[in-house]
C-alpha cells in the first residue's frame, strides 16, 4: 500500500497516457479530456502543501524567536493577506489601474518592481562572471570570448561603427554554430528526458517516493 500502489499508479497512468496519444479514438479522447479536467485540480492542492510548509517554517521561527524572526511576519502577513483581499474584492484580481485596490497595489508596486530589479541585479553578477570567464587563456577560451563579444556588439548601436560585417557575423554565429550547439544539447536533453520518463514509469527510478515511511 505504501510503495507498491503508488508505483502501480505511476505505471498504469504513464502507459495509459502514452498509449492514448497514438490512438485516435473517441474513448482515447475521453481519457485525455478527463485527465485535463482532473490534473489541474489535483495539482492545485499541492499549493496547500507549499503554503502549509511555508507557514510552519515561519511560525516556528516567530515562536522560537530565531535570528531575524521579525522578517517572518513579512512573509506570513501577505501570504494570507493577499488571498483575503482577493476574496473580499474579487474584481481586483483582474482589474488594472482603472479599478485600484490594495491587492492590485501590492502586486504592481511591490511584487513587480522587486522581481524585475532582482533579475536586473543579475546584470552585475553576470558582468563579474564574464570578467572571470572571458580570459583568452587558451584557444577555446578565445573562441568563447570572440563569439560573445561579436554577438553583443552586433546588437548595440555602437556596433554599427564597425560596419555591417559585424552585425552579419553576429547573426551568422547565432544562426549556425550557436544553433548547432543548442540542437545537440537539446537532442541530448530530449533523450535524457525520455530515458527518465521510462525509468519513472517502470519504477526503476523511485526517488520521488521520498522519505514518507516505508
Amino acid at each position, binding site marked *: 500500500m505504501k510503495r507498491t500502489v503508488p508505483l502501480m499508479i505511476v505505471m498504469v497512468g504513464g502507459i495509459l497516457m*502514452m498509449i492514448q496519444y497514438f490512438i485516435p479514438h473517441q474513448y482515447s479522447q475521453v481519457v485525455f479530456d478527463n485527465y485535463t479536467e482532473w490534473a489541474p485540480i489535483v495539482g492545485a492542492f499541492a499549493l496547500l502543501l507549499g503554503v502549509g510548509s511555508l507557514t510552519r517554517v515561519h511560525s516556528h521561527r516567530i515562536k522560537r524567536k530565531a535570528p531575524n524572526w521579525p522578517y517572518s511576519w513579512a512573509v506570513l502577513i501577505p501570504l494570507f493577506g493577499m488571498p483575503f483581499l482577493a476574496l473580499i474584492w474579487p474584481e481586483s484580481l483582474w482589474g488594472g489601474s482603472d479599478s485600484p485596490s490594495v491587492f492590485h497595489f501590492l502586486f504592481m508596486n511591490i511584487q513587480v518592481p522587486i522581481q524585475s530589479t532582482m533579475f536586473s541585479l543579475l546584470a552585475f553578477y553576470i558582468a563579474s562572471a564574464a570578467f572571470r570567464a572571458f580570459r583568452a587563456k587558451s584557444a577555446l577560451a578565445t573562441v568563447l570570448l570572440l563569439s*560573445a563579444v561579436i554577438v553583443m556588439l552586433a546588437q548595440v548601436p555602437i556596433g554599427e561603427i564597425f560596419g555591417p560585417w559585424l552585425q552579419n557575423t553576429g547573426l551568422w554565429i547565432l544562426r549556425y554554430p550557436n544553433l548547432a550547439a543548442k540542437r545537440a544539447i537539446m537532442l541530448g536533453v530530449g533523450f535524457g528526458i525520455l530515458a527518465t520518463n521510462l525509468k519513472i514509469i517502470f519504477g526503476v527510478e523511485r526517488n520521488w517516493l*521520498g522519505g514518507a515511511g516505508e
Partner: protein
Amino acid sequence: MYETIGLWVAAFFTLAIYSFLYKENPIYRLAEHLVVGISAGYGIAITWEITLEPRLIQPLLAGDNWVLLIPALLGLLYITRFIPSIAWLSRYPIAFLMGTGMGIGFPLTMKASVLRQLEAAMAPVYASGMPWFEVLGNLVLIFGTLAALIYFFFSKPHKGLFFGTGSKIGIWVIMLGFGATFGFTVMGRISLLIGRVQFLLGDWLHLIE
C-alpha cells in the same frame, strides 16, 4: 494620489534590492521576505480563481459533476504529508500526476526535442542562388550538430578519427554556441537594468524623458 504613492513604494523597493550590491542589510531582507509572501499569496488567489472555483467548487455546487470529488480527495491527500504516521498517503496524488505527466510528456518530448530537431537538421545544404555564407552555415549546422553530439557521447573513448576528431570539432562548436548564448544573456540582463534605471530616473525622479 494612488499612482504617486505606488511610484514611491516601487522606487523604495527597487533601491532596497539594489542596496544588496553594497552588502546585505535589513531593508533588502524585508524586500526579499515580502516578495516571497506576496508571490505565494498571489499564487493562492490565482489558483483559487482560475482552477479551484470554476473547475471544482462551481460544478460541485451545481450538483452535476460529483465525479470531481475523486481528484479533490486525491488532492487533499497532499496534506497527509504533515501527519508523519500517514505521510505515505501523499504519494498517491504525486503518483497520479507523475505517472500521467510522464506518459503525456513522452510522445511530446519525442516529437519536440528529438524528431523535430532531427527534421530541422536535415535541411538542404545548397540551393541555386544561395549565398556562400549560407551554404557554409548549413555545413556548419549539420556537421557541427553531429560533432557536438559526438562530444556528448561518453560511451566510447574520444580517440581515433571519428570520435577523437569529431569530439575536438564538437567542443569548438559548443564554445562558439556558449559564447553566443552568454553574450545574448548579458544583453538581456543589461536591458532589464536599463529598464529599472529608466524607471528610477524617468518615472520617479523625472530626470530623463
